[in-house]
């Protein structure tokens, strides 16, 4: 009976003992801890899914193309394959950060809303509902930073001989633009994950992720789009300005290379703006999905 009475004493009701702020703070810590533990468990899966796309991009563009004599971006004097490598390396880091946001936040979330219903339990945590979504964005951002750390070395190693990216680290920009980009892309993941039903994930990739990737300045600098015009209107250069990935990739160029890029005083405020918009819309969607 000793065991029973011990359990009996254990089951005394706790009730409401902590302030909402204190409870929310510990809940946020626990949500992040949980995500980190899951990340550690699946670390090889994480590394593989992070590495595959950058590896393929670098392999095809920086190894295969030079080998087979396929020219890239050479109708204007772009400075040859090495200059292209420099442009591409920064873009590869940017695109990895974006895919991390889609994978660690959007796919996760649409799954938890869909068939696993885990979200129903998560929102019973003793914190405001928006904090549950915010925790996902934060851990998505951490994964984005990790993927940037993994991808940069790969991108500068996988290439044909003689095709060398010129990496030049601008530390202040690296330390600010990388986290900012990660938050913006994770927040985009939150918007996508809360907007698309799990059965429509294919649509999300086809109509949102692919256009963002191909028109996001991964393979080219934004400044180089100027020649694409209708009359005197630089239409492509103008239209892609709605694409958040443009600013991320241009930011990566400013952080990791010496190639010309969009002005930093445009990149920073616009990325902050995208963060604000994505978080506002994402948190509102999340709330709508969870509460009725």
């Amino acid at each position, binding site marked *: 009976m000793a065991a029973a009475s011990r359990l009996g004493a254990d*089951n005394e009701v706790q009730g409401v003992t902590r302030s909402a702020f204190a409870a929310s703070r510990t809940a946020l810590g626990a949500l992040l801890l949980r995500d980190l533990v899951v990340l550690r468990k699946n670390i090889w899966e994480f590394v593989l899914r992070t590495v595959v796309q950058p590896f393929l991009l670098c392999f095809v563009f920086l190894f295969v193309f030079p080998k087979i004599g396929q020219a890239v971006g050479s109708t204007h004097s772009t400075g040859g394959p090495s200059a292209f490598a420099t442009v591409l390396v920064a873009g590869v880091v940017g695109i990895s950060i974006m895919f991390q946001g889609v994978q660690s936040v959007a796919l996760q979330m649409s799954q938890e809303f869909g068939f696993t219903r885990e979200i129903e339990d998560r929102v*019973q945590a003793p914190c405001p509902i928006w904090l549950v979504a915010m925790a996902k964005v934060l851990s998505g951002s951490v994964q984005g930073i990790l993927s940037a750390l993994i991808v940069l070395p790969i991108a500068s190693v996988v290439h044909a001989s003689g095709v060398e990216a010129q990496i030049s680290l601008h530390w202040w920009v690296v330390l600010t633009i990388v986290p900012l980009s990660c938050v913006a892309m994770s927040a985009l993941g939150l918007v996508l994950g809360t907007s698309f039903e799990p059965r429509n994930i294919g649509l999300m990739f086809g109509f949102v992720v692919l256009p963002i990737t191909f028109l996001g300045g991964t393979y080219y600098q934004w400044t180089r789009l100027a020649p694409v015009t209708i009359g005197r209107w630089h239409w492509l250069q103008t239209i892609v300005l709605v694409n958040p990935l443009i600013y991320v990739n241009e930011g990566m160029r400013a952080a990791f290379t010496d190639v010309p890029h969009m002005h930093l005083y445009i990149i920073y405020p616009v990325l902050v703006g995208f963060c604000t918009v994505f978080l506002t819309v994402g948190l509102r969607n999340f709330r709508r999905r969870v509460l009725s």
Partner: protein
Amino acid sequence: MIDEAPLASATTSSTDPVIRTIGLTKVYAGADFRAVDELNLSVDRGEIFGLLGPNGAGKTTTAGMLTTRVIPTAGSAFVAGVDIVAHPTLAKQAVGVVSQTNTLDRQLTVWENLYFHGRLFGMGAAASRRRSDELLEQFQLSKWAGASVYALSGGMAQRLMVARSIFHRPAVLFMDEPTAGLDPQSRLALWDILRELHAKGQTILLTTHYMEEADQLCQRVAIMDHGRILALDTPEGLKRSVGVDTIVTVKAAGDQAALAASLAAALVGVTRTRVTEHGVELHVRGGDRLLARCVAAAEEGGYDVEDLSLAEPTLETVFINLTGKELRD
């Protein structure tokens, strides 16, 4: 944005009801009816309270409002003394939830599902580890501690969800259709667990459309339909309120409605007759030599009695009496 209510308002004395609702109402966006209609409810500490009703009666919406997932359209509700509309974040500290679907964290092991729940509710690492071990033991899941939750059967997953829901010692445990979809054996096992928790003083509010479940487990049952409480009492009190002592079911070939009418005329104390798939059902008050009189009356009317059974009234009888329809309609 985190609501900072003074904790003083959240303290309750032990005599206060754990759940109290005043005119609690919910109209879903786009709906032209009230899912829950001016509900006034009071659940005492240590009680197992049942909301019984068919699907769509408003039970799940009621539980949803009390667990802060559904925002009330009107009225107010207090859980453990906390206003759930004004301070949902605070209220969640006092609430444990077991939902209809499996919401276990698929990326974590059985043990980790408990451990992280403890951390989420502010428990330290050591205390959370200790309580996870204890609860796995208590719920007979210890040998699955390191397993993925995918490895659990439906009954085991349900047990783990119950263990998780009481981990932080909530003032109220909400269970929404806890045994829906469970096999009969797991269902009985879960009933035992709930009785054990009740014996230790856990307040439980459960919603169910199984009348046996409400009858067997609950101290008080509120019968709900169309968002309203039609009757509220102990299961015995509810059954007594029908004023019927025996339910007689007579099975015989022929015109069922005519059989019902002739039996009602021939027998004393018939309060209600119904034609069901099992035959003619009579609700009878009093009941001296009921069996013999029934057979005689039926045969006098020219019917060959194939089968005849007597039963005590159930909560189903109560529901039929109140609404004229069956719980599972």
